[in-house]
């Protein structure tokens, strides 16, 4: 019984939130890593692209809600998601046409692209705040929980509750589906293969007749879909606030770099490494230890490795260690 309690407490407070947060980071990092792999620059506008996609999704959600359309127990936002993706695709392809294509034709250095993306970031930042405002927006509806903590306690008779939010369930399922589709696309389809070829060796790809503009456009389209899905899932799970999305950029980049920039597999691994380390290293193990250890050994203190103040330091410490000993990241991406 005590062992079960310990497992449940750990799942409730560490594993489930960690996995959900990790999936969101992984989807975000996939977008960053694809752009780095194919367009060869770090896109700082990614956080705000997520914010834009989520904003459009929210606007459509509100419209659907006002017309009485709902997805039953699932959040209405899932119905609105395709429209958000379409709008974001339009925005990103448009930005590429107006801004990035010019620098591509100039054969600008990657650092110039990074600065340009910084500018694009501020523009999107302003655009989102202009349309929906800087405040918190909640757009979650439908059933909030798959299992409620209290109901779980009554059902099992354990002392510890286990809560799984609908948004957490949807996040993990969606992340798995999206990643599966993306890998199928990159490895099995002609277009996917041409994208990988372009990423591996631009000149060779050009020689073998791959149209670079088409590869670039398809990359932006995929990134738009990834960013909107990641942003909407994050917003469903927590809440939507433009500033929070801007701040998400840091853990997302940490995830992409730890996994290896340019490597899709690495982005996913990186997302989970960063999310889990933030939650686990700052977790106070007192409760779990109290269940597992005999009474005489029970700890008096909190058994906390680091105070939660340091949770961001943790992800950056991991980032530095990885860069020092394995500059290409866990999955051998490109050197930064």
């Amino acid at each position: 019984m005590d062992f079960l309690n310990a497992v449940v407490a750990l799942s409730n407070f560490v594993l489930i939130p960690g996995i959900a947060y990790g999936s969101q980071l992984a989807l975000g990092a996939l977008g960053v890593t694809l752009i780095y792999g194919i367009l060869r620059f770090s896109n700082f506008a990614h956080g705000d692209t997520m914010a834009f996609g989520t904003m459009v999704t929210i606007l459509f959600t509100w419209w659907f809600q006002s017309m009485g359309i709902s997805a039953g127990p699932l959040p209405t936002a899932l119905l609105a998601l395709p429209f958000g993706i379409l709008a974001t695709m339009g925005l990103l392809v448009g930005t590429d046409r107006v801004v990035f294509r010019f620098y591509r034709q100039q054969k600008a250095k990657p650092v110039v692209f990074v600065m340009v993306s910084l500018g694009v970031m501020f523009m999107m930042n302003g655009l989102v705040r202009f349309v929906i405002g800087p405040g918190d927006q909640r757009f979650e509806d439908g059933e909030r929980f798959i299992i409620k903590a209290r109901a779980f306690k009554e059902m099992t008779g354990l002392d510890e509750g286990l809560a799984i939010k609908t948004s957490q369930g949807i996040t993990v399922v969606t992340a798995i589906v999206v990643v599966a589709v993306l890998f199928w696309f990159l490895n099995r389809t002609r277009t996917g293969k041409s994208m990988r070829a372009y990423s591996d060796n631009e000149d060779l790809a050009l020689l073998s007749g791959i149209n670079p503009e088409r590869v670039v456009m398809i990359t932006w389209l995929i990134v738009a879909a990834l960013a909107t899905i990641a942003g909407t899932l994050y917003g469903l799970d927590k809440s939507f606030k433009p500033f929070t999305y801007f701040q998400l950029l840091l853990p997302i980049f940490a995830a992409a770099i730890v996994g290896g920039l340019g490597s899709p597999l690495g982005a996913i691994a990186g997302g989970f490494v960063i999310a889990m380390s933030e939650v686990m290293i700052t977790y106070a193990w007192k409760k779990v230890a109290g269940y597992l250890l005999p009474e005489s050994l029970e700890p008096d203190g909190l058994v906390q490795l680091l105070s939660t103040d340091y949770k961001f330091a943790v992800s950056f410490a991991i980032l530095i260690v990885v860069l020092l000993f394995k500059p290409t990241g866990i999955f051998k991406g490109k050197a930064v």
Partner: protein
Amino acid sequence: MKKLLTATAVVALTAGSAFAGGHATEVKLGVLLGFTGPIESLAPAMGSGAELAMAEVTESGKLLDAAKVTPLRADTGCIDNGLATANGEKLLADGANGIIGGDCSGVTGAILQNVAIPNGMVMISPSATSPGLSTMDDNGLFFRTAPSDAREGQVMAEILKDRGIDSIALTYTNNDYGKGLADAIQSSFEAVGGEVTIVTAHEDGKGDYSAEVAALASAGGDILVVAGYLDQGGLGIIQGALDTGAFDTFGLPGGMIGDSLPANVGSDLDGSFGQIAGSDSEGAEIYAKMAADAGFDGTSAYSPESYDAAALFLLAMQAAGSMDPAEYGAKIMDVANAPGEPINPGELGKALDILAAGGEIDYQGATGVELIGPGESAGSYREIEVKDGKNATVSFR
């Protein structure tokens, strides 16, 4: 270079004469509050409160030589020292005769140190509550109509004890306000025999608080006290703690009291309780009515304090017969405290008459103002309990 010097001299001269020319007819009060940032949902009602007092005085036509009082709004961002200081400078450049603000404790300290003290400008903050501000060497330029958090810590400890709570987990927003308040709550609660299982900080503006909630849940405690902001991390922590079933009841200090919290969290928040500066004085009711007539919510946190801050400025100017900070600053304590005729909100015209005739007043205002020590409110508190999704006042302390 010569041209530049001449130009500067000309500008300085015209600025000087403009100031002198406007002297008899216009008083400008800066309203330097966090219209954006963590308490952006409170700031509008605070600003309106201050402007209500100014409009009342302008209408009475009794201040100095029938002076018109103009508010100058500016933003502190609540946590943005750079922005707050720059806007403080801007208010001085625009000719403000006094500054109502800042709002959050950190920026208030920054404005005081970098703008008010060097320029000899008087500031009255309606909402900065950090105990650190009591001991700051302010040359008598800083006052506040809100009490220090040291007092709020005592009140919260009393409430917890009265409700039979023996142990609490405590989290605070990682800034001057949060840290000061958390220290005050911890020491006061431990002094009355309570146990604090964990004290941990949280950062505002982050989306994910599962790590903080996990640590707090593991430490345990009867309730979770969240010394944060209702628009920011405080909300995220409460949501996370409810979702995981870690805590059912929350202790809510001043920064967490506002209509948006029960509205955002929903019925799960019922039964949580807290306290916020406020009194059962007659003035509070009068003020709420005046605010309702003016079209805003006068019971919103720190709105009455803002009205009082503006009123104190104008009454002190009348008492000193001057709008020079160096002259009216010393009068603020006089008009706020006994002896004299008690003054409620809406009676500013009467107070101005008494002062003009050389009489004394004891300004009560919307919060029963009583300034003590280094010019801060003595502090009475409303005990709040969330009932049916609304903040209800259960008693006064």
